[in-house]
């Protein structure tokens, strides 16, 4: 909450610069790209790579701008990153067991 610490004035000025609609357009465009990618005759690994890249871009935009992580103290990002670190361990474990059943 910006007001609780910085006062309403600076928070409003800061908010006026936040590009909510530009982010919305970017999200819509990238979603359109996703919807067209799967119909292209690409290799599976290429489609998977493109879709995960577009999802990461979209997720980053929402977290950064709509969830205001860009405007929060840096240490707040450590909380979701901690969760993602455990996800990386999970993915590594699953990939490992999938490759060597």
């Amino acid at each position: 909450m910006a007001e609780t610490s910085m006062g309403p004035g600076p928070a409003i000025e800061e908010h006026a610069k936040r590009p909510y609609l530009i982010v919305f357009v970017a999200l819509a465009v990238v979603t359109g790209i996703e919807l067209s990618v799967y119909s292209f005759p690409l290799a599976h690994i290429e489609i998977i790579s493109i879709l995960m890249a577009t999802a990461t871009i979209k997720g980053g935009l929402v977290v950064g701008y709509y969830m205001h992580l860009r405007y929060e103290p840096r240490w707040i990002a450590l909380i979701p990153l901690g969760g993602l670190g455990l996800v990386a361990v999970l993915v590594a474990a699953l990939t490992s067991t999938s490759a060597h059943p």
Partner: protein
Amino acid sequence: MAHPEPAGHQEEEHHGSPWPVIIAVGMGVGYVGIVTASIPMLLAGVVIFVGGAGGWIHQDMQRPSSAFYGLAASVESRFPRVSARKLGMWLLLATEIMFFSAIIGASWTLRLRTTLLGTPLFQGPWAAPNQILNVPLTGLNTFILICSSVTMVEAFAAAEKDDQRRLRLFLLATLVLGIIFVSIQAYEYQKLYFQEGLTFKSAPDGVNPLYGATFYAQTGVHGSHVIAGVLALAYVTRKAFKGAFTKENHEAVELVGLYWHFVDVVWIFLFPIVYLLPA
């Protein structure tokens, strides 16, 4: 001692409500009911949970100023510029990241290992995009969820500027878009289950039976989170129409917004994984 009224008021501002405890008891009883496959215990848990939630909402609606708790908490917080309530929400979201990762990871593992399971019950390929699922319809639903994210963040921006009209308008728009998303998903479910024959145990066209189980597990868990978000949105929208939020006092809008955007982020990853990846 000489001023009992201010002392009582001070205690009230620190949110001494019994209802969260009752809600937790209800969830615990319901969970035991699920684990032990006891329907009566599950129903008892649901009844206690709903009663606790109703009591908490009723208590909160009596005093629009209750959203000041976040302000009080931030003053006490050891952390700069972040209230205790917002810190709590981020911690909740971190646990949700791990929860959804486990669901998606389990589904992905089943998909990768299905040919290695060695049992004829679970043989067959994964469905290709559009083979069973309706990608254009869900693409539209994805766009609706993205729209709801932008209306939610605009509602928060309006609250920061104390623009009550835009706050109510955008909160209402977010709520309506959330209801539309859930409705489309419900329509999709009934069509898939009853017309296409995609159930928890079977799939049409020789598709692997695990396909349905993983589909409903992933989208169902997400859908239940959307429903929870819709309920939270209904709560803050009602409070907004009662004039409960001001320029200095609108943390509830931000917290519900954080949760709502997170649900959007989960869908951003779930949609390509479930609907768009090749067989």
